């Protein structure tokens, strides 16, 4: 046992009090504001108000099965997450590979790319409402200048293009994040394997496939995990851009839960739905973490 270990362990009995005191406030905060709300949510999801008073029932969960809005919102969430994740990952990886070498002004470039992802999501929503506005937005205005007809391009107001628009906005905001994490991962790779590959006469693609990709895997998994969690719970930008509309075209699960709770005041049903979302994100993160520890 190294000396410092022994030092920090002795005398064993008294050393428990101080760390317990240091951790106690954090535990108290998390128990009362994360765990207690969760339990509270369980109880309201199992209750239904009737004329006779409050009933304990599984009714809220049973309702999920036959609620087609719920399943549509689920489907929207998955389409949104899958499409945005794919685009963000491929674009972010490409940018990271391009920039993983000495280029003049790299610092400035990196700093500018940070801008979208640091913006408050509400501001991102405002920015893109302005860009995509069919009457005076910059996108249609610029397209029109090049002689492209923009009559049918109503973006967030069109049932066909609304989903595409909100996905594109997410890609715009979060590709820089994927890029940054992958760039950090690339820069942590040592030079030796590349020199070995060069000596073996590997092509660029072979080097990428057999050297870069395996060594980058931890960073890739972490960034995919973080993005997947965020994408499945997406709320802010869509709320600002379309409020889930037109109609129901961009309603994701978080928006549907919000509407159920705070527009229709059906807290029990909203709580029941939120547990489905929680279970879903848990299962997915467990799968990712399995992969991560199997590297």
């Amino acid at each position, binding site marked *: 046992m190294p000396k410092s*270990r022994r*030092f*920090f*362990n002795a005398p064993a009995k008294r*050393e428990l009090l*101080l760390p317990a005191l*240091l*951790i106690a406030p*954090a535990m108290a*905060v*998390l128990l009362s*504001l994360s765990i207690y*709300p*969760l339990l*509270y*949510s369980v109880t309201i999801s199992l209750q239904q108000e009737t004329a006779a008073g409050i009933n304990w029932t599984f009714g809220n969960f049973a309702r999920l099965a036959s609620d087609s809005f719920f399943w549509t919102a689920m489907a929207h969430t998955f389409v949104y997450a899958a499409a945005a994740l794919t685009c963000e990952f491929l674009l972010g990886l*490409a940018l990271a590979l391009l920039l993983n070498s000495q*280029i003049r002004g790299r*610092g400035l*470039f*990196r*700093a*500018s*790319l*940070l*801008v*979208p992802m*640091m*913006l*408050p*999501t*509400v*501001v991102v*929503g*405002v*920015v893109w409402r*302005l860009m995509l506005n069919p009457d005076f*937005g*910059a996108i249609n*205005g*610029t397209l*029109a*200048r090049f002689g492209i007809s923009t009559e049918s391009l109503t973006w967030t107001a069109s049932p066909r293009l609304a989903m595409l628009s909100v996905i594109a906005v997410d890609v*715009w905001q979060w590709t820089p994040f994927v890029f*940054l*994490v992958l760039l*950090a991962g690339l820069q942590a790779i040592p030079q030796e394997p590349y020199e070995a590959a060069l000596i073996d006469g590997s092509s660029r693609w072979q080097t990428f496939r057999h050297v870069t990709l395996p060594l980058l895997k931890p*960073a890739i998994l972490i960034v995919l995990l*973080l993005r997947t969690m965020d994408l*499945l719970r997406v*709320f802010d930008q869509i*709320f600002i851009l379309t409020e889930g509309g037109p109609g129901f075209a961009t309603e994701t699960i*978080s928006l549907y839960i*919000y509407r159920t*709770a705070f527009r229709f005041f059906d807290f029990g049903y909203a*709580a029941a739905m*939120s547990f489905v*979302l929680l279970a879903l994100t*848990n299962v997915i*993160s467990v799968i990712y973490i399995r992969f991560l520890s199997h590297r």
Partner: protein
Amino acid sequence: MKRIENRFNFFRILCLFVALLFALAPVYWMLTIALKTEVDQFAIPPPWFVFTPTLEHYYDAFVTRAFGQYLITSAIVAVTSTACALVIGTLAAYALARFELPWRLNQRLSLWILSTRMFPAIVTAVPLFLMMRDVRLLNTRASLIIVYTAFNLPFVVWMMRGFFADLPRDLEEAALVDGDSRMGAFVRVVLPLVAPGLAATAVFCLIVSWNEFLFALVLTQTDAAMTLPVGIAGRVTQYEIKWGVMSAAASVAIVPILVFALALQRYLVRGLSMGAVKG
């Protein structure tokens, strides 16, 4: 060979410039809308560069309307909740990084703390709304400060645990040998050494609290208590949208974020990945 390399370099720089244009042009567009008169705002084709700037929307937003108040609320909530989360979280992080706890509690507690951060916000938003209603804290700044403290806490614990773990133990031991108490060594020796990490963590918490929307939307609906994002969102979803006012308010909301983000570049990756990638 040399020519191919050169061509590749040119292609690379071109790609980067296009990426840069995509990243920045939309934000620039919003800034111009904030500075344009209504005539210029609706002009076709849209003027990107040539228009007569005006500050009327800023006046309208922050003097005529209540955006100044939202701004103050946002600042108070962000700073107070960050301070609370830093104090509570740093102490816990130090204990988790430096003391051997029984039953492998170091790892177990750390993972449990991290897992509380993984809940989708909407899952806790519903019960937190009802709890705040029960204790009559709806539409108060206190409700947001409490919720943001809890929200930032896991992040502070994870970041600071990493910064403490990076420090060699010898310095603390030297202080202890010199007769300092445990907490004395922590305050006088350890804290100054992790100060840059502490600052980076604080800035992250400030950004998260400043940007947060869902809890603020659920918990605050009055002018006196709402934060800047909620105020801006309220204007967007109205029937008649004042684009200039909205853009002016949004442009003010991004100023502190940009300043912080630039100051933070070195720690950005580490912070955004909860310390998982050291960057």
